[in-house]
């Protein structure tokens, strides 16, 4: 603190810090935390895209609330969009049209809001992929994974409530489907639908209710959960990929100030800029083309926004099954795709970290990320889930796809139905095999170095391919693999004939653990790696004299062959002697 400076900027900065510190006592906190180190990888910025697009959603959404009127009172449109002039519509739709055509900059802000909402959910999904495939959800970060799953579900809710607010033909049809889904719930369905819609569909209540949820309740909870999410990242510290000097107990990277402040700040402006650009240049949700919602109208090609598309697809692909039990109709055709399947997927998503830890018996703390290939079953499950989701997603656009590519809608739907059952297991197996292949390659690299692709003829005539030792970075990355043993099989009765009360559970766990781990390619021991690398270094060393000749050579040098120069040994024996 005794250092003094004459530099004016530092003087001003110091004075400001002192002024603030005397009032807030913040210097101690800032001093301790501004230098906090974060690891560096481009995939760690995917979550930031979600955060920044959410900020854009909040800012643009606030602007929209100034002009939007969440009312289902019928009015006659008298704005400047001629094809709707004189048409009866709700105030919600009329005010959405006014935002688009009367409010200065309104359409730009509306489109930015919609685009950034689409991007928000997409960024969350991609961020979740990163966390899943690198095993970042493992102990001690399971709770943060849960927060993330909750955020994803809330984002879907935020998106869907927003999609419904303009009360155009598209969004009203979406609400009609929501009502059908509510009604499909056994026993309480009819009453649940009445409760949500405040009576018969569409009624006059649903838009104001969705509005309250959309601008107050859901964003409030999202903000709170984002805070929790980031605080947990802060206190638990960010995970890092394996690399030189990176261990489970340190964080290698750059300090928050100035590096990450600059990177994150810059990235925020990039995200904001791209959203503003497409908001101004690319139409999203042209509500004026769809017209006001009335229950007797529907448009072909009616789709939800992308993140609900998979649910719509599930609904479209489901066979038309219904059964009547004791006078009550159970609509399996709606219940299964829109309640059961999303229920299973979200539950599975939330529980996955706990299931995997239980199945593999992994109780260690993981601050180093796992390369996807080193967890073949997890990676396979993830890819299978993405394929399953993707097929449902395509199903959601089946009519648009059929029309665009001149396909038969029926054939497409059947193809997707069959694919939905067949492709995910195939994707799992293929992914797992690819991972295992990569593991074998890694093991080979550790034991023999990497193949240089250069063939060398030894003095005694033998041809060898030169193997080179891995560089220190690659060595650190590959050798960070950790192997877990398969949990032992359980015994029904022990040596004294006492029955094992948890036999079934233990046996299930043994089988699961075997499923996860048995095919893993074992990492060589440190000694084996050292020997392997030394051997590769020796092989590379054989090539060294050749390089000297190449340098001497006046002519352009091609690949391969042995070059002769004055002073070069002419016989094999001379060469061997020279090398030794």
């Amino acid at each position, binding site marked *: 603190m005794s250092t003094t400076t004459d530099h004016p900027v530092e003087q001003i900065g110091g004075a400001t810090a002192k002024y603030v510190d005397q009032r807030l006592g913040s210097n101690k906190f800032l001093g301790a935390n501004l230098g906090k180190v974060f690891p*560096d*990888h*481009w*995939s*760690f*910025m*995917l979550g930031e*895209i979600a955060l920044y697009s959410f900020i854009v959603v909040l800012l643009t959404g606030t602007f929209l609330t100034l002009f939007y009127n969440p009312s289902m009172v019928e009015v006659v449109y008298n704005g400047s969009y*001629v*094809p709707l*002039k*004189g*048409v009866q519509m709700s105030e919600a739709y009329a005010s959405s049209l006014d935002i*688009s*055509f009367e409010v200065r900059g309104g359409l730009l802000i509306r*489109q930015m809001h919609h685009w950034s909402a689409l*991007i928000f959910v*997409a*960024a969350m999904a*991609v961020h979740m992929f990163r966390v899943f495939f690198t095993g970042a959800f493992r102990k001690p970060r399971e709770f943060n994974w849960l927060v993330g799953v909750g955020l994803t579900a809330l984002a879907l809710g935020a998106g869907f409530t927003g999609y419904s607010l303009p009360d155009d*033909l*598209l969004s009203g049809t979406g609400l009609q489907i929501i009502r059908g889904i509510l009604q499909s719930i056994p026993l309480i369905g009819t009453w649940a639908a009445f409760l949500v819609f405040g009576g018969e569909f569409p009624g006059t209540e649903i838009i104001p209710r969705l509005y309250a949820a959309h601008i107050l309740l859901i964003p409030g909870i999202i903000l709170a959960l984002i805070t929790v999410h980031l605080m947990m990242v802060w206190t638990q510290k960010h995970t890092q990929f394996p690399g030189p000097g990176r261990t489970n107990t340190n964080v290698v990277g750059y300090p928050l100030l100035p590096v990450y402040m600059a*990177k994150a700040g810059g*990235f925020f402006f*990039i*995200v904001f800029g*791209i959203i503003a650009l*497409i908001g*101004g*240049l*690319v*139409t*999203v*949700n*042209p509500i004026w*083309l*769809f*017209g006001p919602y009335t229950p*007797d*109208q*529907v*448009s*072909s*090609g*009616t*789709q*939800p*926004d*992308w993140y609900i*598309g998979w649910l719509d697809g599930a609904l479209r692909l489901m066979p038309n099954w219904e059964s009547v039990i004791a006078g009550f109709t159970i609509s399996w055709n709606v219940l299964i795709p829109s309640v059961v399947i999303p229920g299973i997927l979200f539950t599975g998503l939330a529980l996955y970290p706990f299931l995997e830890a239980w199945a593999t018996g992994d109780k260690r703390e993981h601050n180093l990320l796992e390369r996807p290939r080193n967890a073949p079953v997890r990676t396979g499950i993830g890819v299978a889930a993405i394929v399953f989701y993707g097929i449902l997603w395509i199903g959601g656009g089946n*009519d*648009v*796809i*059929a*029309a665009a590519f*001149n396909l*038969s*809608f*029926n*054939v497409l739907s059947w193809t997707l139905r069959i694919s939905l059952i067949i492709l995910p297991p195939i994707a799992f197996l293929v992914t797992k095999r690819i991972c295992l292949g990569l593991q074998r390659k890694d093991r080979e690299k550790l034991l023999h170095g990497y193949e240089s692709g250069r063939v060398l003829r030894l003095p005694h005539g033998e041809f060898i391919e030169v193997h080179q030792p891995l560089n220190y970075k690659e060595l650190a990355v590959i050798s960070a693999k950790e192997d877990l043993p398969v949990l032992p099989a359980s015994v029904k009765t022990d040596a004294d004939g006492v029955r094992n009360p948890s036999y079934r559970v233990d046996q299930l766990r043994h089988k699961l653990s075997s499923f996860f781990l048995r095919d893993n390619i074992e990492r060589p021991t440190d000694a084996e790696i050292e020997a392997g690398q030394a051997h590769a270094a020796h092989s590379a060393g054989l090539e060294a004299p050749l390089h000297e000749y190449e340098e001497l050579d006046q002519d352009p040098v091609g690949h391969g062959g042995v070059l002769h120069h004055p002073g070069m040994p002419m016989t094999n024996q001379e060469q061997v002697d020279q090398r030794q």
Partner: protein
Amino acid sequence: MKFITARRRNPFVAVLLLVAALGAVGVTFSAVSNIEPAQASLGTQTQVEDGKKLYLEGCSSCHGLDAQGAMNGPSLIGVGAAAVHFQVSTGRMPLAAPGAQATAKEPIYDVEEVAAMSAYIASLAPGPAIPTSEDLDYSDADIAEGGVLFRINCAQCHQAAGQGGALTQGKYAPNLMQATPQEIYEAMVSGPQSMPVFSNETLPIKDKQAVTAYIMALQEAPSPGGLSLGRIGPVTEGLFMWVAVFAAFIGAAVWIGIKAR
């Protein structure tokens, strides 16, 4: 009154009353209803003869020598000149190949040939006629009213913005962005392919003009939001977001994440 009172129990009275009532209903109906007599041939005799020749060469292999229909084609008796003009002038007929539905393509007959074929088919039996320029004049029509009618009657197949959509088994409702007023009118009165017939009784000419005016407004409408992405809503929007926008974000993230060298 004595005259009636004396004879009202006569057994013939019931018959007489029935006849009178039926007659009254018939007269009232024909006075009230505005069913136009279906127009028979408007073409000249030469047109009909030329049309028949063209028909026998180009159409009869599927529709039969007397247009009575055959294995591969429906009967054309009574389909009217409008149907012939719509199908042939848009190139849908003659069919290039059997398929889910006839696709529009470059027409192979010129305007006069189409007129001759229309005249021939119209001469076989009355049917919807080719609309007059008066029928097609939509300049006074209410676009917004047409929009309402379009969303009620057309949007479930042709999509709210007229971009077309898929039907079952590979059939489809075509995109309307190239359709002319005459094609729109003829399609409505003749009901080509899977399309229902919107006769002048169910959808009066005034309403047809309104629908046409709305479709023309859609065709001419600029895209106030920028690039339109095909005006088909969330599918192309999602595709654009994932492919173009996300590529830009990931590119930026990689760029920022690169270590300084």
